[in-house]
């Protein structure tokens, strides 16, 4: 378990299910309820309604991830999230049930963001300056919100590499190795970016 208490996707990877669609429920997917699997099966058969149920269940978490990956820009985050779910629909047949559905979606979100960034010829690149006091739209609010909003702002203001490393490791709970593989960089680079992110966050929050 990582600091956030979230099970790392890596921990879910055991033996792959060979069939093209989900067969008998493997023991590695203990936390997926039977109903959720039923939705996945139906969605794989083309049932858009069932896919909507999957969307309703996971959209909040995926959106939170997208929002932080996109430095708090809700326009970009919504665009990314929509991309992710459309791709999820199109690639649903490749989901073999050897990991939690959310983990599969999560990985798809990060890959989609990276692919979009690499082939971006229609998106507005947004670079937040140090002075940009961006706010996350729709972020959860509570009585202690000032501190939380400050942290969200601070994360949004991090340089891209540092932000990705921090979001994926310290918020989403990925291991260094997993992040390195997904971002196609070395573990050393991820650690350096993490170190940088935490240092910058401390500086900005403790001012």
């Amino acid at each position, binding site marked *: 378990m990582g*600091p*956030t*208490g*979230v099970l790392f996707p890596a921990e879910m990877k055991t033996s792959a299910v060979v069939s093209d669609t989900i067969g008998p429920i493997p023991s590695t997917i203990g936390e997926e309820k039977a109903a959720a699997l039923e939705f996945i099966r139906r969605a794989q058969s*083309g049932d*858009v*309604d069932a*896919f*909507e149920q999957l*969307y*309703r269940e996971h*959209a*909040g*978490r995926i*959106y*939170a991830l997208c*929002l932080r990956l996109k430095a708090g820009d*809700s326009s970009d*985050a*919504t665009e990314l*999230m*929509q991309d992710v*779910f*459309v791709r999820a*629909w*199109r690639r649903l047949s490749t989901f073999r049930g050897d990991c939690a559905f959310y983990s599969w979606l999560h990985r798809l979100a990060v890959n989609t963001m990276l692919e979009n960034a690499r082939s971006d010829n229609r998106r507005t690149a947004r670079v937040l300056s140090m002075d940009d006091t961006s706010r*996350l*739209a*729709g*972020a*959860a609010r509570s009585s202690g919100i000032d*501190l*939380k909003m400050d*942290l*969200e702002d601070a994360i949004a203001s991090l340089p891209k590499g540092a932000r990705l490393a*921090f979001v994926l490791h*310290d*918020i989403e709970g990925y291991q*260094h190795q997993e992040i390195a593989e997904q971002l196609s960089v070395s573990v050393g680079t991820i*650690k350096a970016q*993490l*170190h940088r992110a*935490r240092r910058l*966050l*401390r500086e900005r*929050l*403790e001012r």
Partner: protein
Amino acid sequence: MTHEVIRHLLDDYVTGELTEDARGPVADHIAACEICSAEVESLKGILARAADLPRSIEPPAEAWLNIRSVIERDKEAVAADHGTSENFWRRPYALAAAVVLAAVLSSGGTALYLNSRGTDSSPVIATNTGNGSTPATFVAFTIEENNYLRNVAVLQDLLDQQEALLAPETVAQLKASLRTIDEAILEARSALARDPANKMLIEMLSGTYRQKMDLMRRTAEMTRGS
């Protein structure tokens, strides 16, 4: 290990990623070094606050509508490629009926018209498809109908909330446009009731409905968080 070396290990120390061999000396140093001790506390604070961040944030309501519209276009494209009449009949026809009901809900005038004419708003496909009212077709219609009703209702709610943000002239134009679309839907629907096997009519009706959803969505987006 020197102080400088240990400073670079503090991250791993806090997250429990140090090797067993290194952990002891680092812990000893932290206990004796104010700087490193403060840094460790600070790091723990950041990670604790990160752990406290919301894991789920509600996305914009229209996101699903956009996703769904792409998925529906994908399915249409697949159905067109496969050229199977059965696939063609089920979904678009269900779509047509759903469009009708959506038109009823969105336009008071339309509802009044239908009520006064005593026209049943139940799906024509349930009785006149000519290919038999199979449970699958009826289920497909019900799903489509519910989804479109829900989607239009969501959009209508959004627009109702945002009405105050728009100039009165723009609101009037928007309402006039929606009335125009509703009238077109109603006309096409009436024609469909007389000719339920008309494939083109179904497609046109679907297209008009998509235009309505697009207009509502665009208006909601333009007035929301510029």
